């Protein structure tokens, strides 16, 4: 897979990261070389290897179904850019 400028623009749009022309060029170059390396890894035969989702050889830790958090509305809403006692307030988003 090759990385061209359009691909970089598409990904930056999805990630909501704005890039100027210069940055787009340098990222295209950098990511292309990273992909080249990944393609090199693809030469290895991994037919008999299970895909790896985590490098930690540990079981997933879990918790009991107990309510022991929440009820901190004031604290949570402190970081909302617009002041409101009950809600987060954001610019209108509607279909």
């Amino acid at each position, binding site marked *: 897979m090759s990385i061209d400028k359009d691909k970089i623009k*598409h990904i930056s*749009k*999805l*990630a*909501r990261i704005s890039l100027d022309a210069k940055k787009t060029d340098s990222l295209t170059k950098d990511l292309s070389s990273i992909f080249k390396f990944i393609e090199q890894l693809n030469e290895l035969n991994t037919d008999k290897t299970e895909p790896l*989702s*985590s490098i*930690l050889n*540990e*079981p*997933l*830790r*879990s*918790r*009991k*179904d*107990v*309510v*022991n*958090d*929440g*009820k*901190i*509305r004031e604290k*949570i*809403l402190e970081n909302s850019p*617009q002041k*409101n006692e*009950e*809600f*987060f*307030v*954001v*610019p*209108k*988003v*509607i*279909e």
Partner: protein
Amino acid sequence: MQSKRKLILNKFLIDGGKNRLMSDRSEKYLINGEKDKWEVVIGLEVHAQVTSNSKLFSGSSTTFGAEPNTQVSLVDSAFPGMLPVINEYCVQQAVKTGLGLNAKINPYSVFDRKNYFYADLPQGYQISQYKNPIVGEGEITLDLPNGSKKVGIERLHLEQDAGKSIHDLDPSNTFVDLNRSGVALMEIVSKPDLRSPDEVNAYVKKLRSIMRYLGTCDGNMQEGSLRADVNVSVRKEGDTKLGTRCEIKNVNSIKFMQMAIIYESKRQVELLESGKSIDQETRLFDIKKNETRSMRSKEDAHDYRYFPDPDLLPLNLDKKLIEKIRKDLPELPDEKKERFIKEHSLTPYEANVLVSEKEISNYFEEVIKSSDKKLTKNWIMGDLFASLNEKNISISESPVTAKKMAELIDSISSGVISGRTAKEVFEIMKETGEDPKKIIESKGLQQKSDPKELEKIIDKILSDNKDKAEQYKSGKDKLFGFFVGQVMKESGGKANPQLVNEILKKKLK
């Protein structure tokens, strides 16, 4: 809100028989276009809220209807550095649901990040399961008017719910409530096996019923515990290749699902017949206008860039745990239906209605264990259901409890009151919830079952109507009914009709 849901449930119960007749007429659901007949192919992605106390990855409460943003932790609002820790009960609930759907449980599953931006998704991604879901292929049996039909389940996976956006509190802003953010959902994906709005109705109801029997989802559609994305495509009758589908997002009632399917399939037929093609796209259903519309903002949305969530390790299920959950499964509607048919000589239709809701089957079982089978069936499916429908309440809210219903039925079978008097008693019970025995006593409704007392009445009637008695004896059989009527009238309707018949026959010989 609450009452609306009941209305739908009870309507289903009462109208069950009528709907059956209606759809019996047309076996196959087809759309008649200008040129061809078209088959509709539907698949559902149902989002069912897991019944649990706390959220999937945090200790905040899941209770519905709380003050906005009071059930939100730092994890749910995605503060930097917060780590998700999985709720083991939600995992068990997903396994339980999978077993209830006769599905394959995957001992190894992985949580992935589904990346997209929206105001009610503070993380900027939803934790979901993509390549390795917790539950694989399964099956649901639908009970349809013309027999049963198996619908394939593709998969079931666990994921987080998003928050709620409120658009109508302020003209220029959207308000966000994160109480729902992080609540555990099961996404249950069907195969494209459904062929009509009626089948969708049967599928959602069956799925809902199974989960309610299991206690894994309360199925409350008004509170958003059950919503669906509906995939619709059409193809010419007889074609085997699937057409291009459109996905109608987030429909929250069965009626709206049906309306959306009817509109969308007609739209697709019109496009195809006029030589155009279908764009595979996401659409929304506008309830007010009864139409589906393209959601252009979702153009890029299918590029979710899934990858395994680095904050969570793969989920390995212990085989012993799966077996324990399997062993503890309650009796599910299909098994219960078979047992009801065998044990209580019900027709499949009657059994379907009686197992459709866990509460109804519990009520039925409590009454029938001590009472006459036929009377139990008729009273519950007749007078009781009619009263629930009339008052728009659910069976668990009925003033006539199972115990009282059993007492009423027992008074009929032991001859204390006649079936007709029982209807009178029931009329009072359904309003006041009073004990049937008390009503019978206080109103003096007991049947006269003392032969001597009845003989006295009968003798009086016979001597008052000597001429008619003679006519009867000389062959005018029809007059028998007249005598019974007179005796009943004289007794104030309380004479035991069976005894009256017997004594009259003897006296008129």
